[in-house]
């Protein structure tokens, strides 16, 4: 706990830490081949180093997740279906709020969380530095490229990718449909365009990526449109479907699929520059109340089985980064999209304070 | 005025009692004592501090100075820092609102004090029955207390107050919520009850008739201070101050110069500003240069012809006659002063008549000088 309370995220500290970490993308040699001292068990159709019997004895899993209510419940449902003896409970909040919460709790001496899923790498790095993640190398890590794992492996992994383009309400739209990212700056969207709140990881990525491409003035123009900021993609598409907003700057592909299937009059646009995407990262938490269950979950989530669930559950529809993952239910593979990721995650993480300042300002806070 | 005979050791003693009501001084230095078995009444207009004094004796108000002793034992003493809580003083009280507990039966109400004292159920049954019998409420024992009339509640309150044989009973205007007829009857019953039980009581009322009828001694209070202490006769017949004179029955106040040269037979002569001379009795009070005398309206007599040999006789004119049923009130002009005469209505005297007025000198009471000054 002591390493927690005094920790402070300064730009300098992060950069210092960052230089100590091998940069993601420049892989440290064969991390994966090392450190697996136990031989894994096979349970159902995947490998795990967790003691399944003990996990079932623990009987519970506490999951903190950034997903909306239905999505989080969906993830838990998948795990619970496979391991009925383990009861699941969860807390959901948008990534920024979720991270604040878990830090505050740990500072207060409460360690109630087994696994945490975030929609932003920046807090994941921070949590890793603070020793918040449990170091556990899953035998299922073999299914992943090094880019999609923590560095070194064993802290968190990319359980999926949430790509987003532009989406609009086809019934309410006036004028020509948007085609590229620049089109979202059109003054006719004033008061009728939505985005995500500043706690959203995806929003951070979009801010970073589009700024890099189009320059600092991009978001200043966007601010003039007085966008509505929403907490979750469900709420965002809810408003879009009903016409409360005409267009959204953050149209997440999974939500588009879901609402289209419900009969909503929404259309999706994949701009030529690419879809902004944020990795969704899962990791077991240190000092978890149910350590075996949490390891089991990590293995489950990483496995083909778990990834299939993440990809096909209508509340999730994540794009999987597992090397042997099948296409998404719509027939599209993640690699079919041009995805806009930050190249340098550390530089990205260091921009967080600037992002928050600008984004809060855009939202009037 | 000292009462005749040796005084028994007092049961209740109040010495220099001072009580504040919030920031306002309600009782500003009151002293009196009560002999065992007596009823002492605190009499005065509202706001005079009589209820506060009673509640201080009960232990329901905390005084700021003075001492209260029961049977020589201090219940409150500011000097010795003693303040025994009300429930431990062993007194009993009848409240103005009766304070009957609506959620209990009559029996339970009366039995309460015995239950507190952990009496056995046979003892309780016996004593409650006896107490209810004394107030003629036996038939109501099982009744819910909330279903009683005012008078019935009053009796139950009374029974409850003496069932556990307290040595002292405190009464806070117990009859003021009853109608006039009932009040009169209850007065007698209460008096009788006290005599039968031999209880010492302190009684608070603003009703003059009640005080005169029931008390062994009366303390007249005004503005937190004692005006006069004495038996009903003394208070009525020998008022010390103009206030007492006027509060206890109706009185005419006559002011003037002392005419020492006209003194005869031990009587004191007073000459008014209008030149009238009246003879009164000093009753041991100091005779100064300026005097005030009090004459009760009932003691002034109207007659057609002057009675021979009477020291106080004057011709007066009747200005107004007010018929009041049992008596008539005559307003007469005496010199330059208006006096009120109360006489039996047997012979109506028409307004405008010239008649004679006389009064016995012993009925003309010299008021105590200091008290008169404050009138």
């Amino acid at each position: 706990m002591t390493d927690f309370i005094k920790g402070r995220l300064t730009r300098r500290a992060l950069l210092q830490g960052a230089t100590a970490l091998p940069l993601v993308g420049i892989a440290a040699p064969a991390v994966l081949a090392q450190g697996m001292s136990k031989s894994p068990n096979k349970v159902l159709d995947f490998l795990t180093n967790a003691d399944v019997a003990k996990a079932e004895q623990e009987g519970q899993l506490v999951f903190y997740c950034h997903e909306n209510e239905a999505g989080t419940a969906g993830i838990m449902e998948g795990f619970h279906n496979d391991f009925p003896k383990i009861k699941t409970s969860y807390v959901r909040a948008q990534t920024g709020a979720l991270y604040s919460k878990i830090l505050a709790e740990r500072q207060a001496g409460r360690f109630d969380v087994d696994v945490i899923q975030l929609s932003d790498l920046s807090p994941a790095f921070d949590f890793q530095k603070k020793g918040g993640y449990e170091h556990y190398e899953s035998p299922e890590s073999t299914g992943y490229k090094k880019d999609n794992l923590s560095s070194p492996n064993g802290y968190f992994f990319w359980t999926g990718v949430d790509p987003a383009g532009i989406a609009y309400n086809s019934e309410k739209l006036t004028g020509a449909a948007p085609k590229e990212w620049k089109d979202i700056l059109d003054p006719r969207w004033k008061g009728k365009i939505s985005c995500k709140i500043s706690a959203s990881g995806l929003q951070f990525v979009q801010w970073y990526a589009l700024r890099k491409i189009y320059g600092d003035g991009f978001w200043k123009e966007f601010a003039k449109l007085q966008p509505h900021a929403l907490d979750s993609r469900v709420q965002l598409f809810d408003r879009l479907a009903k016409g409360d907003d005409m267009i959204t700057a953050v149209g997440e592909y999974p939500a588009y699929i879901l609402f289209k299937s419900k009969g909503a009059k929404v259309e999706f646009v994949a701009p030529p520059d690419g879809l902004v995407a944020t990795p969704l990262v899962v990791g077991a938490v240190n000092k978890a109340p149910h350590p075996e269950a949490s390891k089991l979950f990590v293995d489950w989530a990483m496995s083909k089985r778990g990834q299939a669930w993440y990809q096909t559950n209508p509340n999730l529809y994540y794009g999987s980064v597992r090397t042997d993952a099948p296409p998404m239910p719509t027939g599209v593979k993640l690699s079919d999209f041009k995805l806009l990721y930050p190249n340098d995650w550390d530089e990205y993480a260091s921009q967080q304070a600037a992002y928050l300042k600008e984004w809060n300002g855009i939202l009037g806070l | 005025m000292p009462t005749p005979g040796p005084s028994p050791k007092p049961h209740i003693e109040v010495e220099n009692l001072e009580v504040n009501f919030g920031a306002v001084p309600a009782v500003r230095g009151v002293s009196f004592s009560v002999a065992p078995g007596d009823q002492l009444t605190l009499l005065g207009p509202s706001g005079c501090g009589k209820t506060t004094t009673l509640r201080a004796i009960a232990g329901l108000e905390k005084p700021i100075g003075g001492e209260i002793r029961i049977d020589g034992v201090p219940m409150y003493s500011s000097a010795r820092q003693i303040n025994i809580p009300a429930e431990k003083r062993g007194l009993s009280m009848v409240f103005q609102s009766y304070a009957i507990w609506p959620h209990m039966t009559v029996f339970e109400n009366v039995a309460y004090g015995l239950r507190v004292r952990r009496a056995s159920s046979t003892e309780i049954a016996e004593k409650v029955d006896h107490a209810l019998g004394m107030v003629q409420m036996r038939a109501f024992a099982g009744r819910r207390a909330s279903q009683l009339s005012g008078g019935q509640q009053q009796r139950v309150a009374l029974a409850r107050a003496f069932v556990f044989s307290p040595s002292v009973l405190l009464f806070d205007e117990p009859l003021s919520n009853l109608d006039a007829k009932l009040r009169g009857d209850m007065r007698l019953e209460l008096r009788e009850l006290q005599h039968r039980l031999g209880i010492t009581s302190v009684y608070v009322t603003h009703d003059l008739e009640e005080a005169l009828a029931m008390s062994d001694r009366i303390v007249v209070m005004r503005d937190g201070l004692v005006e006069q202490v004495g038996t009903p006769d003394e208070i009525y017949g020998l008022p010390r101050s103009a206030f007492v004179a006027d509060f206890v029955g109706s009185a005419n106040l006559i002011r003037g110069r002392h005419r020492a040269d006209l003194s005869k037979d031990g009587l004191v002569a007073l000459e008014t500003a209008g030149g009238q001379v009246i003879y009164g009795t000093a009753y041991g009070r100091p005779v100064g240069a300026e005097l005030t005398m009090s004459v009760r309206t009932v003691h002034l007599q109207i007659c057609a012809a002057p009675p021979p040999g009477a020291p106080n006789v004057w011709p007066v004119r009747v200005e107004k006659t007010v018929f009041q049923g049992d008596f008539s009130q005559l307003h007469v002009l005496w010199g330059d002063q208006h006096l009120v005469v109360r006489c039996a209505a047997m012979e109506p005297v028409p307004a405008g008549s010239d008649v004679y007025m006389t009064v016995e000198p012993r009925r003309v009471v010299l008021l105590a000088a200091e008290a008169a000054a404050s009138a």
Partner: protein
Amino acid sequence: MQKLAGYGVAAVAAVLVLYPVFYLLQAAFDTGDPVARPPTEYGVDNFAAVLNYPQILLNTLTVSFAATLMALVIGFVMAWILARTNVPGRRVFEQLMVVPYYLTPLLGALAWSMLGQPESGFINQVWRALGGSEHIIDVNTAYGIAWVMALFEGSVAFVMIAAVMKSMDPSLEEASQVMGASRLRTMLRVTLPLVIPGILGAAIFVFAEMLGSFAVALVLGLPSRYYVITTAIYQFVQQYPPRIQLAAAMGVSLFAVMFVMLFLYRWVVTSGSYATITGKAFRPRVADVGRLRYVLFAICVLYLLAAVALPLATLLFASVQKIAVAFPGADNFTLGNFSAAMSMNAARSALSNSLILGFATATLGVPLMGLLAWLIYRSRLPGAGLIEYVVMFPQAVPRLVFAFGMMWAWVVFPIPIYGTMWLLLIAYLTVFLPLGVRTISGVMLQIDKSLEECAQMCGASWTFRTRTVTIPLLWPGLIAAWLLLFIASIRELGASILLMGAHSKVITPTIVESYFGTASELTATLALIQTLVIAAAMIVLVAFTRRVGAHPVE
């Protein structure tokens, strides 16, 4: 024994109330490193930072003023109609007037957001179907927010104004009429001036409440970026990194203003020279308004429609659709939302947690607040007056701000209760102190002091007479207080939303989270379920207090 109980309970109250306030103040003046506890430097920079958000301050004032005005109008009109005219069904209406307050303002906000959003709002859909253009109402504006606030938080105004009207001696008006003044003239020249201090008091009180309002601004204001201080504080705390110091400074500023308002209220009410409030309850003269009473009846019905029937119907309507629209096609209906709601483990656990907490709060709260009420109003123990201020203190602090102080305070407490049900229990007991103490003391003061004094004179010790006289007499009031506390716990939002943890979810904040994180139809379903629970409790409350004769005091 008396002293022990009295001072013991006073100490408990003092800790409950002052501990979080201390930390709130500490955070507001903390200008050092936000993560360092205890603070490294102190200063007033945070308050200066508050001034960087003039729009938020302005919004708060605008909305509060507008809402207060609307609430006063509604309250006055309804109080007049129900207390002074012979409109049919008066008794029933009076009871129904407080229903909107017990149905949470959150529910009202949710329903009205479904009714009044410019594009998707049902009312606007109907308007467009009838040939109108654009929209006829926009509930996401300041006035929309104020309107919903007035509807659901304004019945307090009604209760207060009605009380003023009932305590006016009708002979004052009769004197005017005997001298030949018309009814209208009497009302303007006699009645109105006499009730004005009472109305003024109500205005100040309602304004203070509106300043601290949270639920409506959250649901209706947030999506359209309309922030008031309470919702801004909520946002600041939810962000990463959380702007605790700024939030604390805003909270303290708000509570300072509310404190002044409540002080003003007390001054107006207690020093009024308009001695019509004699404390006796009069039967006010009821005027026969002839045919007009059917119009007035319609007005009453209209109010209840807007505040009760319409919102409930809207939620019901939305909850049975896949995508809620005003004119659904036949294939748009489903019961799936109900099964989804009940299977969401958040909803199930939240509901059961709320019931358990409600039970615990009420059962612990009644003895605690009963003792406090006795301490303040009946005992003669020195310092009792001070305790009254401590107990009423949470009234002046918006729930959210108080909870913020609690969150900040209990995080550093050595025993880890942060994030548990215990913390919520403590929070509820604290913020409900004014409600509970006021309710119980209202009943207590009706009991003649002499009933207890007489027991004293019969020799009963404090414990004996409390057991045999005080508690039996108080019993109906205690039951009413229990029910009130139970309902208040279940509908609580402002404090719970900040203090909830993974294992301590409660229903009302869960509905809010659902609003932000799920489809609106599901949210409507959850809100309906919560309403049913509260309605059941309310029916019991009304039936019980009617039978026993005690009055559930606001």
